[in-house]
C-alpha cells in the first residue's frame, strides 16, 4: 500500500505543481489588472508593465513557427459539407464576423477554415474615400499613430521599438546620406518633412486582405523570418520590440511626399503573408532561419519605377498558418 501510494504521489505531483503554479500566476495577473483598473478609474495613468527579459526569452523559445505551420496544415484539410456550417458558425459567433459583407455568404461553399479566413468582400461593402490622400489598407483596430521620434516607433502608447531594427539596414537605396544623420533623418527625402507611423491590428474575425493605402510605387521587398508570437494588443503592450521579433514583410518605396513603407507582421495563427505581385515570396517556411532577412528589388534596368499601386488596389493577404 505504501509503495502504491508513493507511486500515485509521484504520478500526480507534476499535475499538482502545474495546477498550483498556473492558478497562482493567473490569480496574480488578475489582481494586477484589478489594481490597474482601480488606478485608471481614479484618473491615474498606469505605465505599461513590460515583460522581463526572461519572460521574453521563454515566450520566444516556444516553437510558435512550428505550431503555426501545424495549424495551417490542419486548416487546409477539406471539411465534409455537413461539418462546414457548424464549424464556421462557431467561428463567426466567437469572433463576430459579419457574413452579410462577404462576397460568398453560403458557408457550404468554403472547403476549409483557411478558405473561409481568406474570404473576399462584396464590392460595395468598402467604398474607398476619394477626398483623402491616405486610406486604411485593411479592417482593424488603430493601436497607435503619430510622428516618429528619436528613431523609435510606438507599437502601443509607451511601448516602443527601434525603427532601424524593424526596417533593417537602409540598403534598398543608393542615395548617399551624411554619416552623422540618424536612421530616421536618412529616410526623409524632402527637406522640412517628418516621418509618421500608424499601427493597425487585425482581429481574428476581421477581413484579412490588405490594400494599397495611397498611390505609391514599391521599390523593394524585405522578408524577415522570425518568431510568430501573438500580436494582440495585450501582448503588444507587454513585449517591447514585439514587431521586430515577429516574421514580417516590409515593402518600401515612394509616394508624392517621399518615403513610404507598408509592413505586414505575422502572428501565431496567421503566420504567412502573401503579396499578390510577388510570387517568389514564401513566408513561415522552415528553409528560412530567424534573424536573417531576404531582399528583392523591384527596380531593374528596364523598370526604374518599381511596382506602381493605386489607392485601394488589392495588395496582399494574411493566411492561417
Amino acid at each position, binding site marked *: 500500500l505504501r509503495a502504491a501510494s508513493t507511486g500515485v504521489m509521484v504520478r500526480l505531483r507534476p499535475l499538482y505543481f502545474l495546477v498550483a503554479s498556473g492558478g497562482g500566476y493567473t490569480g496574480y495577473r488578475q489582481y494586477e489588472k484589478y489594481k490597474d483598473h482601480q488606478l485608471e478609474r481614479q484618473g491615474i495613468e498606469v505605465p505599461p508593465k513590460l515583460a522581463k527579459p526572461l519572460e521574453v526569452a521563454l515566450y520566444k523559445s516556444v516553437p510558435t513557427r512550428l505550431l503555426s505551420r501545424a495549424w495551417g496544415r490542419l486548416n487546409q484539410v477539406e471539411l465534409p459539407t455537413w461539418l462546414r456550417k457548424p464549424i464556421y458558425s462557431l467561428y463567426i459567433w466567437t469572433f463576430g464576423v459579419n457574413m452579410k459583407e462577404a462576397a460568398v455568404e453560403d458557408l457550404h461553399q468554403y472547403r476549409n477554415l483557411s478558405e473561409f479566413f481568406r474570404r473576399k468582400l462584396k464590392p460595395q461593402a468598402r467604398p474607398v474615400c476619394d477626398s483623402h490622400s491616405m486610406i486604411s489598407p485593411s479592417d482593424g483596430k488603430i493601436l497607435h*499613430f503619430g510622428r*516618429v521620434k528619436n528613431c523609435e516607433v510606438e507599437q502601443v502608447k509607451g511601448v516602443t521599438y527601434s525603427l532601424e531594427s524593424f526596417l533593417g539596414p537602409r540598403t534598398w537605396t543608393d542615395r548617399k546620406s551624411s554619416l552623422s544623420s540618424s536612421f530616421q533623418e536618412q529616410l526623409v527625402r*524632402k527637406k522640412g518633412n517628418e516621418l509618421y507611423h500608424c*499601427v493597425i491590428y487585425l482581429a481574428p474575425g476581421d477581413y484579412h486582405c490588405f490594400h494599397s*493605402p495611397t498611390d505609391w510605387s514599391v521599390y523593394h521587398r524585405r522578408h524577415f523570418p522570425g518568431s510568430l508570437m501573438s500580436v494582440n494588443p495585450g501582448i503588444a503592450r507587454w513585449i517591447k520590440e514585439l514587431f521586430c521579433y515577429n516574421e514580417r514583410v516590409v515593402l518600401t518605396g515612394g509616394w508624392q511626399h517621399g518615403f*513610404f513603407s507598408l509592413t505586414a*507582421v*505575422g502572428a501565431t495563427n496567421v503566420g504567412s503573408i502573401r503579396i499578390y505581385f510577388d510570387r517568389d515570396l514564401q513566408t513561415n517556411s522552415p528553409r528560412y532561419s530567424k534573424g536573417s532577412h531576404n531582399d528583392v528589388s523591384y527596380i531593374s534596368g528596364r523598370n526604374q519605377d518599381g511596382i506602381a499601386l493605386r489607392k485601394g488596389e488589392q495588395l496582399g493577404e494574411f493566411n492561417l498558418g
Partner: protein
Amino acid sequence: STIVLIFEAPKDFCFNLKAGQKIHFGEAMGSL
C-alpha cells in the same frame, strides 16, 4: 496580424484617427 505604415509627409499632415478606434479598409486615415 498587424499592418504598420511608416511614411514621410509634410509637417501639416494630419491623421483623422483616435487610438483604439475600429477602422475599415477604404476609410480616410489622414490628409494634408
